[in-house]
C-alpha cells in the first residue's frame, strides 16, 4: 500500500509541476502586461515596477525565482492591486469558500448515504422510487438553474430564508443545497446500487442466518462494502464542490475565491492568475490523493493486492 501511495504521490507532484510550468509559459507567451496598460507612468516608475515584479530579469531566472517562491508557499504580489500579496487575497476570500465547501461535502455524504440506504432497503417499493426520482432530478438540474429557483421560491416569494450572504447559520441552507444537489444524488445512486448488490450476497445471508439484527447487518456488514465507491467519489466530490462554488458564490453573493476566477483573467493580473491556478490545482489534486489514502485505509484488500503494482 505504501508503494502504491508513494507512486500516487509522485504523480501528484509531476502533475502539479507540469501545470505550474505550463501556466508560467503561457503567462509569459501572452504579449502585454497590466503594468503597461495603466495610464502611462513615467519611465522611471515603469522601470521600478518591472524591477519590483522581477520582470527585468531573463525568463529562465524568473521561472526559477517563481519555483523557489512557490516552494516557500509564496504566490507573489498582485499586479492589479499593487503591493497586495496574492497569498493575502486568497486567504481573505478562501475562508468563505472553505466553510461552504466543508459544510457541503458533509451534507452530500450524509444526505446521499441516507437516501441511498433508504432506497436500497425499500428496493422496488415506493420510497425507493421516490428517492431515485429525486436523485435523477438532482443530477439533471444544473446549479445555475437550481440556485435562482430556490432563491426565488424560498427567499423572494415567502421570505423563509435569506437571499444572499454567508454570515448566519441560516444563510448556509440555500447555497449548501444548491452546491450539494448533484453530489447527494450521485452518492445516493452509488450507495443504492452497491448496497442492493451486497445485500443479496452470501455473507449477508450468513449474517442473517446467524440471527443478527437488520441494523447490525446494514451498518457493520453491508455498509463497509458499499461505502467504497463513495470514497472513490470523494476526490471528485471535492473537485465538484470547489468548481461549483464559483457559481454558487456568484448567485448568493458570497465573497469567496470564485470572484478571482473571472476577474483575474479580465484584469490580466498574471500573478493572481497563476496564484489562483496553482492554489486550485493543489486543492483538487491533494483532495484526490486524500481520497486514495482513505480508500486504502478502509479497504483491506488494497493493502495487499495493489502494493504489488497492480492497478
Amino acid at each position, binding site marked *: 500500500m505504501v508503494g502504491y501511495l508513494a507512486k500516487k504521490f509522485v504523480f501528484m507532484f509531476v502533475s502539479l509541476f507540469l501545470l505550474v510550468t505550463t501556466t508560467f509559459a503561457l503567462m509569459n507567451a501572452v504579449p502585454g502586461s497590466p503594468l503597461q496598460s495603466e495610464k502611462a507612468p513615467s519611465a522611471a516608475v515603469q522601470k521600478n515596477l518591472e524591477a519590483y515584479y522581477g520582470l527585468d530579469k531573463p525568463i529562465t531566472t524568473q521561472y526559477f525565482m517563481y519555483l523557489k517562491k512557490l516552494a516557500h508557499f509564496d504566490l507573489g504580489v498582485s499586479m492589479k492591486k499593487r503591493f497586495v500579496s496574492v497569498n493575502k487575497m486568497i486567504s481573505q476570500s478562501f475562508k468563505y469558500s472553505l466553510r461552504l465547501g466543508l459544510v457541503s461535502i458533509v451534507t452530500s455524504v450524509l444526505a446521499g448515504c441516507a437516501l441511498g440506504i433508504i432506497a436500497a432497503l425499500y428496493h422496488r417499493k415506493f420510497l425507493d422510487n421516490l428517492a431515485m426520482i429525486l436523485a*435523477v432530478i438532482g443530477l439533471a438540474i*444544473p446549479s445555475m438553474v437550481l440556485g435562482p429557483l430556490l*432563491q426565488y421560491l424560498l427567499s423572494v416569494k415567502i421570505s423563509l430564508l435569506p437571499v444572499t450572504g454567508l454570515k448566519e447559520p441560516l444563510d448556509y441552507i440555500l447555497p449548501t443545497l444548491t452546491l450539494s444537489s448533484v453530489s447527494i444524488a450521485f452518492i445516493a445512486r452509488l450507495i443504492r446500487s452497491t448496497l442492493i448488490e451486497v445485500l443479496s450476497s452470501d455473507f449477508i445471508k450468513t449474517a442473517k442466518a446467524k440471527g443478527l439484527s437488520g441494523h447490525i447487518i446494514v451498518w457493520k456488514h453491508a455498509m463497509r462494502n458499499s461505502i467504497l465507491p463513495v470514497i472513490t467519489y470523494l476526490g471528485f466530490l471535492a473537485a465538484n464542490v470547489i468548481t461549483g462554488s464559483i457559481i454558487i458564490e456568484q448567485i448568493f453573493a458570497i465573497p469567496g475565491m470564485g470572484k478571482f476566477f473571472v476577474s483575474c483573467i479580465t484584469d490580466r493580473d498574471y500573478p493572481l*492568475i497563476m496564484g489562483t491556478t496553482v492554489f486550485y490545482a493543489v486543492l483538487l489534486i491533494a483532495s484526490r490523493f486524500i481520497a486514495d489514502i482513505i480508500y486504502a485505509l478502509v479497504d483491506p484488500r488494497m493493502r495487499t493486492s495493489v502494493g504489488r503494482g497492480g492497478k
Partner: protein
Amino acid sequence: MSQEMNVNVTPGAGSNPFEKIGRDQNGGERIVRKSLTAWQNIRRNLYENKLSMVGLYFIIAIALMAIFAPWVTGLITGYNYFANELANANQPPSWAHWFGTDDLGRDMWVRTWKGAQISLFVGIAAALIDLVIGIVYGGIMGYFGGKVDETMNRIAEILYAIPYLLVVILLMVVMPQSLTTIIVAMSITGWINMAWIVRGEIMRLKNQEYALASKALGAGSMRIIFRHLIPNAMGPILVTLTLTIPGAMFTEAFLSFLGMGVKSPVASWGTMIDNGRQAMTTYPWRIMFPALFLAVSMFALNVFGDGLRDAFDPKMKK
C-alpha cells in the same frame, strides 16, 4: 386425439390407446421464441424502459427545434437572435413573442432555440472529439499492453489530475473567448475517461478467438483493433458518449454563466440565465425558458444514457 399428441406418438404405436407414450426427445430443444441479435435485444430492452424513451423523445424534439425553430421563425416573423429592438424590451410572453423579450427587446423564443443549438453543438462536438482520441489512445493502450500501456497510462493519469477548469483559465488567457476555446479546453482532459473505458474493453476482448484468428490470418494490429475489437466494444463506448454530452453542455452553460463562454449577442443558455437572473423577480420569463430547457435537456440526456447503460448490461435483465 389432438394434433400434438399425434406428433409425440412413438413409432410403432398401434391402435392400443393405453400404450405408453415416450418422452418427446426433441421438444426441449425446440426454439419457440424468435431469436434476437444482440442489437435487437438491446433495442428491446431500451424500448421497455419508459423513462429513457421519454428522454429520447425530448432529445429529438429539442434537437429538431434547435435546428429549425430559429430559421423558420426568422422566415415568418423576421425575428433573429441578435437584433436589438429597445422599444419592445422586457415584454411578457404574448402572441407576438411566445417567450417574451429580453432587456434589449430580442425575441426569447428565437434566442432560446439558438441557445439549444449552441448547447447541443458543444455537447456533441466535445463528445465526438473525446470519442476519436479516446478510441485511438485507449485502443492502442489496451491492445499492446506492457510497456506501451504503462507509459501511456502514466501520461493519461498525469493529465487527468489537471482540472479542466484550470485548463480553461489558461486557455482563456492565450485564446479568444469563443466556442472553440471551450471545446478545446474540455477536450484536453475529457478524452481520458473514454480512453480508459476503451482500454478496459480492448484488454478484455483481445484474447478472444476471433481476434486470435484474425491475427493468425496475418491481419495487422491496427486492423484487429479497429475492425474487430472496437466494434465489439461499442456498448460501453456508446454509453460513455451519451453521458459525456450533458456534462459538456453543463460546462458550456457554466462558463457562459460566469461570462467566460460565448459572448453576447450569441445566445447561450448560460448567458441568458445569468442575464435573466438579475431581473428574476420583475421579468421571470427571461430566466424561466432557458433554465427550463437546459434542465429538461440535461435530464433527458441523463435518463437516456442511464437507460442505454441498463440496456447494454446483461446483469440488468431480470
